[in-house]
């Protein structure tokens, strides 16, 4: 349908402005991270990588980066197989109350992050009281919290790939003499592979960038990168932070593009 020219022009202007506004902060932070001066001025006072060196020199960022990587990897390794199993069970109708399960899987979007973090923290405190062992400041506690984050994403990404899977391919395999486990290993699993790869990458990203769940659960000396950034922010704002932010944007953005090659994210996320 075509529109009269003036209203169409206005319309394009609004849309363009919206997109520009969305991109501006990200571009700005990248620009700041390579400028020599703290305050941006014209003409630019020269480019530098000093802020990146500075960020790496500060122990909290370097360590935060390492423990974020560690936690994200472990959460992915535990969460993705569990979530995949759940997705399979849902797709095969083995779970009663499919609707309830689907609603539950929206929980990472529904339950505010701070609320979930608080709830987990309180839950851990009670659990510590009962089992008489540390949870809150341990790596296990943190990983367990992040696993909860990765499962719903995994279920949704894997479910999307299962939905496209032709059930009759499994029947064909059985018809050709394959036992149930062989069917799963030789036919079902390979057909789910794109979804599983996407789930791994995506779970990693979600865990890596999470602030709210980690905030109360990190222990001394095991601060994740987002928490380290927040702590740093409380004292000062300088281009060091822009450098850290840029590294994260590039890392996560790169992983997203990689994931997108396996599953069209815009369709399933």
């Amino acid at each position, binding site marked *: 349908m075509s529109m009269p020219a003036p209203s169409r022009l206005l319309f394009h202007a609004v849309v363009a402005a919206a997109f520009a506004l969305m991109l501006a902060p990200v571009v700005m932070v990248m620009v700041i991270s390579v400028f020599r001066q703290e305050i941006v001025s014209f003409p630019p006072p020269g480019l530098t990588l000093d802020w990146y060196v500075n960020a790496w020199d500060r122990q909290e960022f370097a360590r935060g980066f390492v423990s974020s990587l560690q936690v994200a990897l472990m959460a992915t390794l535990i969460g993705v197989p569990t979530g995949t199993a759940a997705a399979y069970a849902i797709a095969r109708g083995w779970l009663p109350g499919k609707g309830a399960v689907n609603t539950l899987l929206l929980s990472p979007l529904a339950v505010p992050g701070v609320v979930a973090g608080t709830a987990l923290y309180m839950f851990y405190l009670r659990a510590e009281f009962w089992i008489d062992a540390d949870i809150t400041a341990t790596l296990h506690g943190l990983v367990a919290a992040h696993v909860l984050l990765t499962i719903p994403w995994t279920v949704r990404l894997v479910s999307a790939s299962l939905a496209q899977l032709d059930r009759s391919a499994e*029947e064909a395999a059985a018809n050709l003499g394959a036992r149930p486990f062989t069917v799963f290993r030789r*036919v079902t699993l390979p057909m789910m592979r794109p979804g599983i790869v996407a789930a791994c990458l995506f779970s990693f990203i979600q865990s890596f960038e999470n602030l709210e769940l980690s905030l109360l659960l990190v222990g001394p000396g095991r601060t994740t990168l987002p928490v380290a950034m927040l702590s740093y922010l409380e004292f000062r704002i300088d281009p060091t932070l822009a450098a850290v932010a840029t590294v994260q944007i590039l890392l996560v953005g790169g992983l997203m593009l990689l994931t997108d090659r396996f599953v069209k994210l815009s369709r399933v996320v």
Partner: protein
Amino acid sequence: MGNLVLEALCKRYGSSTAVERVDLEVKQGEMVALLGPSGCGKTTTLRMVAGFIPPSEGRILIGGQDVTRRPAHARDTGMVFQSYALFPHMTVGQNVAFGLEMRKVGRAERDGRVMEALRLVRLDHLADRLPRQLSGGQQQRVALARALVVNPAVFLLDEPLSNLDAKLRGEVRMEIRALQQRLGLTTLIVTHDQEEALTMADRLVVMERGRVRQVGTAEELYENPTDPFVAGFVGRCNLIEGRLEAPGGFRAASGALLHCDVEAAEARPDAALLALRPERIGLQPDAEGGGRVAAVTYLGAQTEYLVEQDGTSLLIIRPTPTLADPLRRLAVGDAVTLSWEAAAARLLPAAT
């Protein structure tokens, strides 16, 4: 290879019945078609034979052995799925080899048999392609090769032509039939297309609402339908309600007295329908019989006439008359006389 026997096979879902007591024997080397509209239970029957659906009652025997309780993977049937169901992550060759692998056939023999099966469907040059790189017709042939390479006791085809376009359908139909006859495969095919069933199968099983309505060769079903559903589903048919009036007449509900066979009438005192094939009715352009043309539709090789006679509408299909024939100039409103052999009018019980 062996025969396939279904004994009183039933499938119920809760209170609804999908398949109701189907008895059938498919003989060694015979091709039988399950024909019927969607929801008639034909696919459910096929899937029970393959082992994907457990029957509620009855038995399934392959080569004399009761396989009713055996899982799908231990049944030795070769099925071709409507969607082809190729393994998308395997090449054509790996797809065809899969069944042999499951049977633990050694590598050398396997490769030989795979190529042989692919040659059978003229695809041996495409063994290294992935299924998505093939056309629909080629995928279909891979599915055939994959099912045939393991020499299954029973060959099952689930609407194998429904995803092909009209032109290809004719070719693949001939190809499947030729393969089946050459290899002497005991075959059960499911289809909703009567032309497909008539051209491919040795015998047809017409199903409706879970029940078998009639079993027979194409000619038996077409010339001697015993059920109004079969008469209307296999070919076109005028079905006229009414009752017998001795001797040799059938009084239509509209009042018209229609000519029919006396002997047949005596054999079927419960007759409630007169079945008359549209191409078995003769047409003369004169006013004697009291018919009136209500519509003429030129269809190229054939012409359809709708004729009103004493309140009954009859469809007549004739080869299009030549230009010299006075019938060629027949138009709406013209008076005509209808005629048919007494034997052409079949008497049927009421529809159930």
